[in-house]
């Protein structure tokens, strides 16, 4: 009997380790031989721990599983109270276009053999047979844009590094996923780490870099150990090392762990941190592509950007590009979170409306109350009211509505949310996490908290002050921490003015 019990951190946080142990114990007690595979999560977090049993028809799902539900798995499984049917046939799975996450939840994350059976390493093999400039061109033609937030075309960044002359170049993977409501990087690293290894190796071949770093967070211990194991396995198998898959070209990589600073997700702050310095943001120019890690040409890309490269190289640029809408090509891994009935990761082509995502896919709130607001793009993203639910999920459409898609995290809040309090939190977060370089960010955010407290206390004269302050932060900040904190603040004020009126009770911490 083969049973999958996710080893994903969210599944574990919901009891997957206990369930896995119970499966082994129960099987032993019954004298049944089982193989337990700790797969990644399918992304249906509301069903975690989601256990799967391999049958002749396919993989049957059961969830959300408790330890007490385990014995019945060994009886008439179809009559199990938590039976979900074939996992691949569930509507949530069938509606997706899984390109980057095709293997996550499906394979044993640390089996290179299974990885290859599921099309792994095909992109890298193709890249090895190509000229570096042709790889860069393929990525450019795919229309892939940075999934870390800014949406910069990945191929163009690679070309700059490719064209630069230097004795050493680097690939740095930004896995510092600090935005609230995001966990795609984490799920990919835990559920299919070889995809990131392969994507980084292709990037290395494309730009002439022989060394890669994954900079991730101390809040992600499972992802750290999973990536480290995958790198060792890949090295032992010759996927990494002095001669990548026997190509005669070198690429190797290692994992580095941050130390609890949100701003280190900003690429230049990240590079300083990687060099062992304070994570202060650097002024640009010079671009990291020309003077990055250790002053050398460096590709800095998000996990999902790099992990989308293998499928692009395998299936071709045109295949990837035809998904999406307008200038937002390919797929995006939506992370639907907060007060939501069906929360999790949903990979789909760009272009669904926000309302479809929140109401149809997410199923509305977990509390059953009306959705009041959705914050898209993490702590620097705008809050969207229902009136804007027809906005298509693309970089351009969200920008046009005064927002951003960022790393595609969505925080759903019901009608009990106090938007003044959320605005205050945005300012407080900026004050706590500011790298300290710019006055408008460092001091402005503290003033923002004070001003919001005045408004909360009934002093309406604070509102124009807040608006001015946001203007100053927008124009006078070096990076998007100070520069974009006005998005959540001003969107809260603009779309939910009633929460900022005199009758409103004082905002408590």
């Amino acid at each position: 009997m083969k049973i999958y019990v996710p080893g994903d951190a969210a599944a574990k946080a919901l009891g997957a380790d206990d369930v896995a142990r119970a499966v082994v114990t129960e099987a032993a007690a019954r004298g049944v031989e089982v193989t337990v595979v700790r797969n990644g999560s399918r992304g249906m977090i509301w069903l975690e721990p989601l256990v799967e049993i391999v049958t002749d028809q396919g993989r049957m799902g059961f969830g959300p599983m408790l330890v007490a539900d385990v014995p019945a798995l060994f009886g008439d499984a179809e009559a199990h109270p938590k039976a979900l049917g074939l996992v691949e046939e569930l509507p949530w799975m069938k509606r997706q276009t899984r390109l980057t996450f095709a293997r996550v939840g499906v394979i044993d994350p640390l089996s290179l053999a299974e990885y290859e059976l599921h099309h792994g390493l095909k992109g890298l093999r193709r890249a090895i047979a190509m000229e570096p400039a042709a790889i860069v061109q393929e990525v450019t033609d795919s229309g892939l844009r940075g999934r870390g937030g800014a949406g910069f075309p990945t191929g163009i960044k690679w070309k700059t590094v490719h064209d630069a002359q230097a004795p050493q170049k680097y690939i740095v993977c930004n896995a510092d996923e600090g935005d609230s409501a995001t966990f795609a990087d984490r799920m990919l690293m835990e559920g299919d780490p070889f995809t990131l290894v392969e994507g980084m190796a292709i990037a290395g071949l494309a730009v002439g870099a022989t060394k890669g770093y994954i900079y991730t967070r101390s809040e992600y211990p499972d992802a750290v150990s999973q990536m480290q194991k995958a790198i060792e396995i890949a090295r032992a198998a010759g996927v990494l090392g002095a001669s990548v898959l026997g190509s005669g070209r070198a690429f190797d990589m290692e994992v580095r762990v941050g130390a609890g600073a949100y701003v280190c997700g900003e690429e230049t702050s990240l590079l300083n941190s990687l060099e062992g310095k304070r994570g202060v943001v650097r002024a640009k120019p010079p671009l990291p592509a020309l003077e990055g890690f250790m002053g050398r040409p460096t590709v800095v890309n998000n996990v999902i950007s790099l992990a989308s490269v293998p499928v692009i190289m395998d299936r071709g640029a045109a295949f990837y590009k035809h998904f999406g809408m307008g200038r937002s090509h390919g797929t995006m891994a939506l992370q639907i979170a907060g007060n939501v009935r069906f929360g999790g990761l949903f990979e789909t082509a760009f272009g669904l409306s926000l309302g479809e995502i929140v109401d149809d896919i997410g199923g509305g709130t977990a509390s059953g109350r009306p959705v009041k607001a959705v914050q898209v793009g993490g702590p620097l993203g705008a809050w969207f009211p229902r009136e804007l639910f027809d906005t298509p999920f693309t970089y351009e459409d969200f920008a046009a509505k005064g927002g951003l898609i960022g790393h595609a995290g969505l925080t759903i809040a019901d009608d009990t949310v106090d938007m003044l309090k959320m605005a205050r939190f945005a300012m407080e977060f900026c004050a706590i996490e500011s790298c300290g370089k710019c006055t408008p960010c460092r001091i402005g955010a503290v003033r923002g908290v004070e001003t919001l407290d005045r408004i909360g206390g009934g002093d309406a004269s604070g509102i124009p002050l807040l608006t001015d302050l946001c203007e100053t932060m927008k124009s006078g900040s070096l990076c998007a921490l100070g520069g974009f904190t006005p998005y959540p603040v001003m969107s809260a004020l603009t779309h939910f003015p009633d929460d900022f009126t005199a009758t409103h009770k004082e905002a408590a911490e």
Partner: protein
Amino acid sequence: MPLDESAVLSRVNEILAEHNGMEGPLLPILHAIQESFGHVPQAALPVIAQHLTLSRAEVHGVMSFYHDFREQPAGRHVLKLCRAEACQSMGADRMAEHAQRRFGIEWHETTKDGAVTLEPVFCLGLCACAPAAMVDGRLVGRLDEARLDALAEELR
């Protein structure tokens, strides 16, 4: 109990040696030291500084930039509660108040018996099963008052 300074120094020197040849070794070194001692002892700073040809102030400056590094030991257990938006939408503020009342401490404080230190954290990547917490490296999703009380009993 104060740490024996020569024991600290010999372990720090081992750690420094293990990180020889690394590009940008300071954060990995500080993590390894904190892993060994539960905090970064003052006595370690000049040794690290000399080894990396930095000033002591520079090393201290780096250490103090990051929320993770401690100058003082924490309690026997560290309870981190997520304070970020997705968790707030599912009652993180209520969880924080409950924990603070239950343990009688504020953020960053340790209970008098030295059992628990309470720390805020901004996102654990468990935003679809909020509110989230981390107890000494173990993750907890869909936290509620009952789970918190059970944890409080456990963390003695």
